[in-house]
């Protein structure tokens, strides 16, 4: 009797050891150990000094952090904001065209959106750089900013148009009906009732577009800008090639985080808020 009781107790203990939860705990422990080993190996075998010489030479970090970097940072921000505003305006028009009852508007907008979403942005910029050759006399004001705004904005508009279209379609049909039943003409209903709600809906995805745009602004170097028009990547590259070291580019790259991280935080907050509101 006592013997059989002990065996049942033993088998129960064995069973507990093999329970799914126990196995999960063991597996997690193994992962921590593996991670720890990897870190130790990295410290032991990697030549920290060599890595630093290639990517982060202190003297070059200091040289990169000059007034040129500030100008480049400013240019990146100005390029992005201008292109975002241009893209937003054009994207809204494209989205409205896409939803228009006039068929040719829908076709034009679809062609535009598919074209600029499908073609690599860098090719668009290269072509844009040759625009003065193709269309002599065509002048875009606020050089070089105007050119960059339009080039970046043309591509961004295609992406934003799709986002905004989704936002407009997410506004319930009853909203338009209510507006129209109050005697508002279609245009006023769109402007006063639909668009304000649509933009509220698409603010988080549009902010994501803004983050992408910050990084896409690194492509405008193909437009061939003067030194005063350098943005972060071009500035870093130029300095990297004169110093034959990657450090300036790494520093410039880190500067992008100064812009994108706060924006990401903003998006996260907005999304959390939207979730709570629902």
């Amino acid at each position, binding site marked *: 009797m006592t013997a059989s009781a002990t065996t049942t107790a033993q088998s129960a203990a064995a069973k507990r050891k093999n329970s799914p939860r126990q196995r999960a705990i063991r597996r997690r422990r193994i992962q921590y150990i593996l991670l720890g080993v990897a870190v130790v190996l990295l410290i032991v075998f990697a030549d920290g000094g060599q890595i630093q010489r290639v990517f982060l030479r202190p003297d070059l970090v200091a040289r990169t952090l000059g007034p040129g970097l500030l100008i480049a940072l400013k240019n990146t921000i100005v390029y992005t904001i201008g292109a975002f505003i241009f893209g937003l305006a054009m994207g809204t028009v494209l989205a409205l065209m896409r939803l228009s009852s006039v068929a040719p508007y829908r076709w034009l907008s679809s062609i535009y959106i598919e074209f600029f979403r499908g073609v690599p942005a860098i090719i668009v910029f290269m072509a844009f750089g040759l625009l003065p050759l193709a269309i002599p006399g065509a002048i875009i004001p606020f050089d070089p900013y105007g050119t960059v705004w339009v080039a970046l904005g043309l591509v961004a508009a295609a992406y934003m148009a799709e986002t905004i279209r989704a936002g407009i379609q997410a506004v*319930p049909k*009853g*909203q338009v*009906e*209510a*507006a*129209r*039943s*109050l*005697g*508002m*003409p279609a245009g*006023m209903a769109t402007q*006063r*009732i639909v668009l*304000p*709600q649509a933009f*509220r809906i698409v603010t988080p995805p549009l902010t994501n577009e803004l983050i992408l745009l910050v990084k896409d602004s690194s492509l405008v170097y193909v437009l061939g800008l003067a030194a005063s028009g350098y943005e972060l990547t071009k500035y870093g590259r130029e300095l990297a090639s004169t110093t034959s070291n990657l450090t300036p580019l790494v520093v410039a790259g880190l500067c992008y985080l100064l812009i994108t991280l706060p924006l990401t935080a903003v998006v996260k907050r907005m999304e959390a808020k939207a979730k709570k*509101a629902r």
Partner: protein
Amino acid sequence: MTETIPSGLRDDEIQIYDLHKSFGPVEVLKGISTIIRRGEVVCVIGPSGSGKSTLLRCVNLLEQPTKGRVFILNEEITDPDADVDELRTKMGMVFQQFNLFPHLTALENCTIAPIRVLKQDRKTAEATANENLVKVGLGDRGDAFPAQLSGGQQQRVAIARALSMNPELMLFDEPTSALDPELVGDVLSVMRDLAKSGLTMMVVTHEMAFAREVADRVIFMDGGVIVEEGPPDSVIGNPQQERTRIFLRRVLDPTHVNTGAEDEAYLQRHAADDVREDDEDWPVKGPERI
């Protein structure tokens, strides 16, 4: 058929002549004609799918009728040259789902159309709006956004919004159907006051008690046609048509269990009746909410 000509009486606010509406192959309205006079309160009742909401939406052209003519204040709204927006300013509409503008406060909901459409100055519009919010019992909630209001409060703001255009007539599309039962009373009492004030009202509703008490005339619709119309005491109190009786029994008797036998018997008796042919909603399953 001879051309129906509007009577041209000054008192006719809504005139509907031989109205048809199809959605694709489904004919929802099969020739509706009726006239609603100034100050009249008309309740439209009927089973779901009978076309009563579509009829109301055709009156202010939220739905384009397939055939037929509608006159508002003796102006033809179905005329291709009609200024539909201008005619709509003269008739308020209240929706089942409220459709308040969520990005605007209650007060702004009531002022946006008077300011933008009627070109009133902000002060005048806000004074009117506040007056109407008081009228619906929400004088202190003007700063609230729709999301901060209960369903019943939202619907009352929607009524105030429509009233702020100072309309000649009001259309109500099942205004209490989306509300929790305990909130229905507030909305109905506001509507009752409006009816007493002499406003012309066309109300699609399932509230039989309200219809019986407030309506000057009740229209019973089924299968896209007007089956019976007249004073509430006769249509609801003493219906002449069998379809009306079946509907009312189902709606009014909470203990009534629809076994289907009734519908069977009805369908058998009317097997040759082509009106019913393509109506998928008949027989209606389960009792409607009172």
